[in-house]
């Protein structure tokens, strides 16, 4: 069965919402009633049918709207997509990974035909039908990473591996939670993670880096990260802080259910075969508090997580201003009953 792609917006009138299927599809991140940073890395193995983990690259009802929003961001700010010249092999590796994953998972929407280096790619939802030569950039209308990530939900970073470190040498980043590719480009793993509180001290980044350096082909891994966003905005970048920063002052006890969104990033990592680079995908999912409340276990748990969140984390994630209002709103959806372990609805 094909997906029904919604016509909706992430700016202006903010018509984005989740269908009941999309709510159940949402990768709820809290497996217990509290939250702290951890090296939460697990194999990126196929998950339950209908979940965000069913396929390696998830395409959902927001696909067309996400891609439209990306095109708007790029038109205003081309520096959201950057790639250093030595990353060209990794860019092509990414084209291969995304085209094969998308066409295998969603054959009704995407078709890839390969005949040696002569490739034919059909993307029906976006009305694209292109023949090109794999490895020859002049046969595509954009450089390879830009070409394919204009057609794939989520942000992407390509990390070069050298000298026992990872380097952010390439990326398509249009829907980030307040960090900047233009600032981070060329940085090493610990340099770009420098602003994160508490995690360095307990060795989380040492262990995570050691693990990533040893990542193998065909063994992708994933982790979840989360924050909150006011209004369903994909582009909460430092570059556009002047447009969204003030949104935080517009939250009132009456509008929490519609304005406050939990924003979860499903981050998956693959070792790329010919470049030996790593791709880090950051697929963001938004859900309104009102939508969270349709799953009783989730609203109970989110309430408790927000109540006990370490203040350093709340400050880093930028929640401080509306955290209490959100807790109060969620309190009405928490009867104090115990929650079952794990993330799935009861």
């Amino acid at each position, binding site marked *: 069965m094909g997906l029904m792609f919604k016509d909706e917006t992430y700016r202006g009138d903010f018509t984005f919402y989740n269908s009941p299927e999309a709510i159940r599809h949402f990768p709820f991140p809290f497996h217990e009633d509290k939250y702290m940073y951890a090296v939460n*890395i697990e194999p990126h193995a196929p998950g339950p049918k209908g979940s965000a983990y069913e396929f390696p690259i998830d395409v959902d009802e927001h696909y067309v709207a996400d891609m439209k929003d990306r095109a708007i961001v790029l038109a205003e700010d081309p520096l959201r997509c950057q790639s*250093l010249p*030595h*990353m060209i*092999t990794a860019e092509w590796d990414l084209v291969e990974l995304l085209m094969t994953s998308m066409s295998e998972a969603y054959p009704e929407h995407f078709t890839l035909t390969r005949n040696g280096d002569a490739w034919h790619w059909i993307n029906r939802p976006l009305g694209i039908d292109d023949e090109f030569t794999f490895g020859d950039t002049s046969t595509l209308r954009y450089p390879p990473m830009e070409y394919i990530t204009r057609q794939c939900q989520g942000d992407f970073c390509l990390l*070069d*591996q*050298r*000298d026992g470190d990872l380097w952010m040498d390439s990326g398509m980043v249009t829907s980030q939670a307040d960090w900047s590719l233009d600032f981070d480009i060329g940085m090493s793993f610990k340099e770009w993670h420098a602003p994160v509180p508490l995690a360095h001290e307990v060795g989380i980044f040492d262990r995570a880096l*050691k*693990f990533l350096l*040893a990542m*193998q*082909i*065909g*063994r992708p891994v994933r982790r979840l990260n989360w924050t909150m966003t006011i209004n369903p905005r994909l582009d909460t970048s430092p570059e556009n802080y002047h447009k969204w920063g003030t949104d935080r002052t517009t939250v009132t006890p009456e509008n929490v259910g519609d304005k406050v969104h939990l924003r979860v990033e499903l981050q998956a990592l693959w070792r790329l*075969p*010919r*470049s*030996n680079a790593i791709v880090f995908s950051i697929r963001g999912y938004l859900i309104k508090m009102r939508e969270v409340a349709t799953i009783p276990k989730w609203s109970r748990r989110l309430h408790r997580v927000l109540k006990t969140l370490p203040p350093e984390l709340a400050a880093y994630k930028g929640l401080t201003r509306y955290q209490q209002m959100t807790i109060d709103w969620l309190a009405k959806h928490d009867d104090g009953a115990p929650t079952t372990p794990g993330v799935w609805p009861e």
Partner: protein
Amino acid sequence: MSAPAEIRVRVTEAEAVTPAIKRLKLVPVTSNALPDFSGGAHTVVHYTDGPRHVRNPYSLMGSPFDSSAYQISVLRVPDSRGGSALIHDSVNEGTEITITSPINLFPIDRRARRHILIAGGIGITPFMAMTAQLDREGADFQLHYAMRCRDTGAYWKVLQGLYGHRVHTYFDDSNQTLPLTRLLDGQPLGTHLYVCGPAGMIDWVLKTARHAGWPDENVHYERFAAPPPGNTFAVELAKSKRTIEVGPRESVLEAIEAAGIEPQFLCRGGACGQCETAVVCADGTLQHNDHYLSDDEKASGKKMMICVSRFEGARLVLDL
């Protein structure tokens, strides 16, 4: 975080390239393609024949653009722990063996304007794949390959045929020496150096390059230590509450695996860091044989790379 994925392969060619080097071509048993890889990657071969057993790393030397088969070269190491001899004696056309999915600890630095590859003897194997990749990507590279003599040197004719004047050979028995100092002198900015070969050669190249002012980031090497033999010793495993014996010709890692425990590993040669194990107590001397831990870490006695390092003394307890 576990041991690497394993792939079952069948040997479809087994060729004695020289009296001591056997080339194996490996095709997958159940699928029709192997994972793609990048030049410099290795795989760990796992093969058991009765009481004899081998689990050794070998560089992939075929073209990274051919995923229908892998190729490796096995040098028969005299006085070895028997692993390479076992492959020479009993792995032939038709034999099925297990390999791990490839991992690259010796990757090409793609920022380089020029790549200078220096090989000694069997150290040529990772460069076979690297040259194929560099050539296809149109990179500026040159290969300098030192061997004992024309008969025992492997693949040099093939390489000359493929890459012509970009391949330079040096034969000991003709008193030809690799002109390292001259080679390192006057290279354009952005040149990267790669070396793989006997330990003495790697040391010589690293030292000479440093002396000539080359930054460490521009010098790459691959050095797998074979687990050296030694005396028998016992290891207590604190978490699994067992004591196992490590024989003179096996590594701690191998002894633990034989006891049914599967610690992490990637290179089995003291290079990758994956098998790092915390030492709970060591009443005696840790014999560090790896190239991973820093001198300070080695001196601290708190960590051990169990794929190559040994112990001599009264009692060793590991956090396993």
